[in-house]
């Protein structure tokens, strides 16, 4: 009597076998896919082709081996895009490992906006905009119709005093004229840079003038 193998029994039925490792053929198939395809799609394709059951994490592990997350071409595509669309890009490069630490972007439209509506300026930073965990500083204001507009964007690696010094220097170098009024958060590093280097230049700066202060006092009161 011939013994039927375990795999053959399951192939006759519609059951799928769980697999712990991928074959070389499977890895070849993954490399045929695009970089932007989702992992679930690839997993479904492999399961249908080889009639096995695969876990998401296993496929994801091999997918990321072939297409690494932090690709080397990200920064270069960024700068190439800026050059194609006539954006001005200012870079700050760390000399120890030659990586880009700070970026400042400014386009033609932003310059035109600043000429017309650059009397008052709002500076604010946000997080969770890219996967490198870099904060994005946005210089904004608004137009005569009450629409929001952006005057400049900075992508920096930290929020220290020196980085803000660099950012403000680049911003005022590209726009030439100075604003009359500047509003920002109660951010101590922004405050220190403005007090040190821009106090004599007829800018008056305030932070979150009315609503923010009252909010913070009320929260402290509740504690």
């Amino acid at each position, binding site marked *: 009597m011939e013994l039927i193998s375990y795999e053959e029994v399951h192939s006759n039925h519609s059951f799928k076998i769980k697999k712990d490792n991928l074959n070389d053929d499977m890895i070849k198939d993954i490399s045929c896919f695009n970089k932007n395809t989702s992992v679930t799609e690839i997993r479904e394709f492999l399961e249908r082709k080889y009639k096995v059951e695969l876990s998401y994490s296993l496929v994801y592990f091999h997918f990321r081996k072939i297409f690494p997350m932090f690709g080397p071409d990200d*920064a270069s595509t960024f700068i190439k895009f800026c050059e194609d669309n006539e954006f001005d890009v200012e870079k700050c490069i760390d000399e120890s490992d030659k990586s880009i630490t700070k970026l400042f972007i400014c386009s033609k439209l932003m310059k035109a906006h600043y000429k017309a509506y650059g009397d008052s300026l709002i500076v604010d930073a946000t997080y969770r905009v890219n996967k490198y965990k870099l904060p994005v500083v946005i210089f904004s204001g608004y137009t005569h119709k009450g629409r929001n507009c952006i005057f400049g964007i900075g992508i920096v690696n930290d929020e220290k005093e020196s980085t803000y010094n660099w950012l403000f220097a680049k911003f005022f170098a590209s726009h030439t004229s100075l604003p009359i009024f500047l509003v920002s958060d109660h951010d101590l590093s922004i405050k220190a840079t403005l007090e040190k280097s821009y106090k004599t230049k007829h800018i008056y700066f305030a932070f979150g003038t009315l609503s923010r202060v009252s909010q913070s006092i009320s929260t402290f009161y509740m504690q």
Partner: protein
Amino acid sequence: MNHGALKTKILELPYIENQDEFQKTYELIQKSLTEKKFLKGSHYLEEMWKIREKWARAYLPWRFTGGTRTTSRAEAINSLIKQYVSSKNEVSDFINFISSFEKNQFMIISK
């Protein structure tokens, strides 16, 4: 002073236009905070008092601001960015969004 009355007074504090009135209300709040042993709050208020010409309407000099008094406009732009770009995206996606934002804005102005 009642808890609710104190809170409303604190919320009104930055909007007061007269300087003497501002000082009076500040002292009243500070007194009641120390009576109720809200030491953290009173310390914070003291710190804010030192830099009052940066946030209180009574001490702000007249300047042309175009109506900017808060950072809420910048916060609106931040929320708009976060609708399109998240912490999973790369920097090249971010610049794509910025260019599309600019084109959209230019269309509105040219109309």
